[in-house]
């Protein structure tokens, strides 16, 4: 291969192919992601801030947004505690069935949200569910109510924290923890002062991803919530509702709010991650 090559300071060999590939990738991502996403921004601000002000003064939208935030925060807290604990168990402990469990943990990533909703309805449904009627007679309603929405949201985002924390736990190894133990630290002290600081960024990363996922869950929530306006209608359900009712402006504005939060999450993560790798 005797073509002319420029060797950049980074040591990358640049050939015409390099530029072709670069162009193809940029064009693909522009057409598939960048342009469509930017159009939502354009549509939202077509009439300046009126459509945004419009939805923020609509009490139903505000209620839906609050419900979404509340549900997402609860689901994220549950998944963070569960995720960190489960990661520690999977990496640091030995028990029968560990490999099976480790594989099953990823299941929620590949299950259809509609199936998630159906599964929860089959168990917690108030009329025919396996456990639903018992819980309901004890005064605890799951399906068509906030707990159901929280469960659906927690289900779909379940593996995200674990997937971030497990590799880091593997990577940091056990020596620092052993050193802390030999210096007299108890398990709790070792976790708080040694392990937690080491996995801190992985946890943050997992939490941010879970938050984005939780705020945006749609299918599973649609099945379990009953979609009752002002009670169990979340922000994503609101987008659908508005669009189907020919309120395109409202739909775009609400979608813009949601997109903004998720893009912010991604940008935060993009900023955090390289910093972490430099350490």
């Amino acid at each position, binding site marked *: 291969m005797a073509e002319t090559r420029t060797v950049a300071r980074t040591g990358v060999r640049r050939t015409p192919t390099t530029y072709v590939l670069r162009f193809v990738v940029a064009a693909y991502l522009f057409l598939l992601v960048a342009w469509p996403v930017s159009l939502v921004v354009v549509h939202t601000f077509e009439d300046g801030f009126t459509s945004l002000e419009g939805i923020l003064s609509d009490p139903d939208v505000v209620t839906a947004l609050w419900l979404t935030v509340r549900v997402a925060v609860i689901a994220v807290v549950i998944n963070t505690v569960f995720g960190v604990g489960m990661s520690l168990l999977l990496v640091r402990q030995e028990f029968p069935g560990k490999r099976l469990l480790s594989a099953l943990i990823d299941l929620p990533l*590949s299950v259809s949200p509609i199936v998630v909703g159906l*599964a929860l309805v089959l168990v917690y449904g108030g009329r025919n569910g396996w456990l639903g009627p018992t819980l309901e007679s004890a005064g605890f309603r799951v399906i068509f109510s906030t707990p159901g929405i929280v469960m659906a949201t927690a289900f779909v985002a379940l593996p995200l924290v674990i997937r971030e924390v497990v590799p880091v736990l593997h990577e940091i190894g056990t020596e620092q923890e052993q050193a802390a133990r030999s210096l007299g630290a108890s398990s709790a002290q070792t976790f708080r002062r040694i392990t937690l600081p080491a996995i801190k960024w992985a946890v943050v990363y997992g939490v941010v991803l879970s938050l984005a996922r939780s705020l945006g869950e749609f299918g599973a929530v649609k099945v379990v919530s009953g979609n009752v306006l002002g009670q169990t209608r979340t922000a994503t359900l609101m987008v659908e509702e508005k669009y189907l009712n020919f309120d395109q402006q409202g739909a775009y504005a609400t979608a813009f709010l949601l997109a903004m939060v*998720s893009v912010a999450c991604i940008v935060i993560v993009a900023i955090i991650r390289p910093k972490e790798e430099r350490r």
Partner: protein
Amino acid sequence: MSTTNTLDRTSGVGLGIAMTWFSLLVLIPLSAVVFTAAGGGWDLFWRTVTGEQTAAAIRLTVGQAALVTVVNVVMGTLIAWVLVRDHFRGKALLEVLIDIPFALPTIVAGLVLLALYGKDSPLGIDVANQRSAVFLAFLFVTLPFVVRMVQPTLAELDKEVEEAAASLGASRVTTFRRVILPSIVPAITAGAALSFARGVSEYGSLVLLSGNLPFRTEVTSVRILSSIENNNLAGAAATATVLLVISLAVIVLLDVLQRRVSGRG
């Protein structure tokens, strides 16, 4: 020396709580789907999933997901390659773009695609209510999987091996085919599996985009939802079981691959 401990009391209690929650949230509900499907007997199950409309939905979903996966294998590997090996201004922006489909609420994803490829398309391309809408939606939501699986493997690849191949007279194409490709194939397969699973299970992004026309653009998840809405839970469970089997197959494949790629557990 690896020191994993056998369970002490605290960890035992922790495992108990974690497993209880995991069972209540995931295992028992998913089993309920399979049990409900089985409860109607094999005949009912078979009749449901081979019923004309359901079978059409499953064919469409699996077909489009497979097609998208093929595209992702090529484009995802290409994108990962450019992100790892090329350096240019704006690369960080591309990195962010790749994660957007993962973080964007699916209903918003549908709306977003409708903005460029709907009836008011500035490009004059209107896929709304077409089969290609399903393809486009799948392509969007599955974008990150192959890229994100291949990227780290590619980054860790030993440059010296490539240099060795080159010094032995291999062209760049040969080096890629014989040296690089074999070491990233497990990562590509894992990404492809995830992308296929995600495609097959997609719902949210299609709601506004595909029109959910029976026999034309109705995917499996939509079909299940309409069974639920018609209070036909057994039928919904039967179709859902098909999707669950696909998910499980992917999980098993991933488990085998991940042991080779990153080594969890």
